[in-house]
Every structure is written in structure tokens, then in C-alpha cells.
């Protein structure tokens, strides 16, 4: 009697151990699935903190291409008039690096175009405006570069024709760009994860 009882006991114990294992694996699997497929895309949460222009800043425009490297194009199509803005945004963990990179820029020209306006105020972003030498030629185009704290931005303005409209775009959007830069947070945070991690800093330096 005894060996049969022990045999059954061991069998039962193995069976319950097997069931516990199955339950544990199932729990890990379901939890993993919930995390992997339910975790929200951090960019959507971070996006309001990123000081980029949005279609509402340039009425009638729409987002053409959105990239992860904080690069965005806004397009404007009204009948035959076509225009676009390409904005690149860089976040530096160390704002001194931002200043260093800025100081490496040629103070007279940008991409071979003369710098028409420059601002060196301390209470506003430091900026350059460089345009192609003959704006009356088609297509008129300009670069606006600015930095403030951790943030650097370069904005490329392009119009198929009409220099005046390009100037209008520039004068309409530059204050908004400056405002966005100045109101941007020093570091991006997603839940408890902030950009101050050393690994991220090294990545940004690369």
C-alpha cells in the first residue's frame, strides 16, 4: 500500500508543479504581450515638448514627412502656389556643446549664401538668416538658424515664386520658432525616463 501511495503523491506533486509552470509561463506571456503591444509610442507623448512648428502655425499647411530625428517638413499648396518649410531640430544634453557647434559656423555665409540678419541678444535665441543672393530669382529660399539652451534648429524656407510671400512667411514664423525654442524643456522626459542618462548623452554626442 505504502509504495503506491507514495507513487501517487509524487505523481500529484509533479502534476501540480507542471501546472504551476504552465500558469507561470502563461502569466509571463500575457504580461509581456500587454507591455509590448499596449506601451504607447513615446514620440506621441514627447511631441508636445518638442519645439517644432505645427501645421496650425502656418495656416493651410500639412505635415509631409515626420522623422524621428526631429526633422519635419511642412507643405503649402494653394492653387499654383507651392511652398515648403524643412525644420531640423537638435537637442544637446550639454548646452555648451550647442554653443561650440554654433561658434564653428561661418559668421559670414551659410551654405554659400550671405547672412542677411543676425541676432546676438541674450534674452532671445541667437540666430542667423541666410538667403540665396538673388531672392527675386525663382525659387526664393532662405535658411533660419537659431539656438537656445539645449536646442538648435535650422529651418529652410522655400517658395516656388514670389519673394514677398517668402519674406512674409519668414517674418510670420521666426517669432514663433523663437517662442517654441524658449519654451522648450531642458530635457525630454517620458514617464520616469529622462534624457539625462549617460548612455543617452553619449548617443547624442555621437
Amino acid at each position, binding site marked *: 500500500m505504502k509504495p503506491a501511495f507514495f507513487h501517487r503523491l509524487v505523481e500529484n506533486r509533479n502534476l501540480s508543479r*507542471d501546472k504551476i*509552470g*504552465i*500558469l507561470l*509561463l*502563461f502569466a*509571463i*506571456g*500575457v*504580461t*509581456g*504581450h500587454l*507591455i*509590448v*503591444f499596449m*506601451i*504607447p*509610442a*513615446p*514620440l506621441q507623448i*514627447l511631441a508636445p515638448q518638442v519645439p517644432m512648428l505645427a501645421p496650425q502655425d502656418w495656416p493651410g499647411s500639412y505635415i509631409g514627412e515626420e522623422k*524621428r*530625428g*526631429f526633422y519635419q517638413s511642412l507643405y503649402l499648396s494653394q492653387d499654383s502656389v507651392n511652398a515648403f518649410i524643412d525644420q531640423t531640430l537638435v*537637442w544637446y544634453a550639454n548646452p555648451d556643446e550647442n554653443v561650440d557647434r554654433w561658434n564653428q559656423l561661418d559668421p559670414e555665409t551659410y551654405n554659400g549664401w550671405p547672412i542677411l540678419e543676425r541676432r546676438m541678444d541674450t534674452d532671445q535665441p541667437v540666430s542667423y538668416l541666410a538667403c540665396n543672393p538673388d531672392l527675386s530669382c525663382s525659387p526664393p529660399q532662405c535658411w533660419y538658424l537659431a539656438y537656445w539652451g539645449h536646442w538648435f534648429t535650422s529651418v529652410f524656407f522655400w517658395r516656388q515664386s514670389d519673394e514677398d510671400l517668402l519674406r512674409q512667411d519668414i517674418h510670420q514664423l521666426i517669432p514663433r520658432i523663437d517662442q517654441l525654442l524658449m519654451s522648450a524643456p531642458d*530635457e*525630454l*522626459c*517620458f514617464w520616469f*525616463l*529622462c*534624457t539625462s*542618462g549617460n*548612455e*543617452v548623452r553619449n*548617443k*547624442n554626442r555621437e
Partner: protein
Amino acid sequence: MTVLLIAVGLTCLLPLLLLFVMPVGAFYTLRSWDQTLNWEASFILASSVAFLGYFRIQDILAPPLPIPAYLHWALTILAILSPICIAVAWLRWNGVKGWLCLLLFPLVPIGMIAIWLLIEFPFNS
């Protein structure tokens, strides 16, 4: 050219291996069509879900987002392991031999590569 030949070779061989050779081997061990079919279906489903999870994680956590590397790796591993865990639990519940269930752990990542190769090479050109 050599890389392309290897890729095309793998694209042909891996699905053949996973869809035909492995089930035959499993059938020889299990001696049951039900369990073999169960194993193969679990394997294909786990590989597909792991593939989707892996690319979802790569997609939403791509640099330069402020995600520490350890978290990125943990989520990537979780994306691959969680469907395997469910598949193993399901197979074990249905009485498939333990070692054959655990074989999914090394085989599902290979299945993911096979799915990726199938999507990348024959259909992408």
C-alpha cells in the same frame, strides 16, 4: 553578390526546414498528428507574434528617443519571449512532451528570421 546568394538560400531553406522537416521530426517523436499540428501551429503563431512585437518595439523606441539601452533590450527580449511562453504553456497544457515545448525557445527566433526573409526577399522586389 555572395550575401544575396546566402540570403536567397536561407529564404528557401529556412521555411522548408521549419514547415516540413521540423513537423516530420516532431511527428516521429510525438506519434500523433494532433499534437504535431498543435506544435507547428503554435510555432508559426509564436514566430509571427514575436516578429510583430519585435518590430513594434523597434518602431516606437528607435533612437534618438531618450530610452536607456537596457530598457530597449529588455523590451526587445520580452517581445520575443512572451509569445514563446504562451505557446509553451499551451503545448504543455495539451500534453506535448516538455523538451519539445522548450524547443520553441531557440526555434522561434529562427522562425522570425524566416518570416523576415520571406517578406524581405521574394515579395519586396
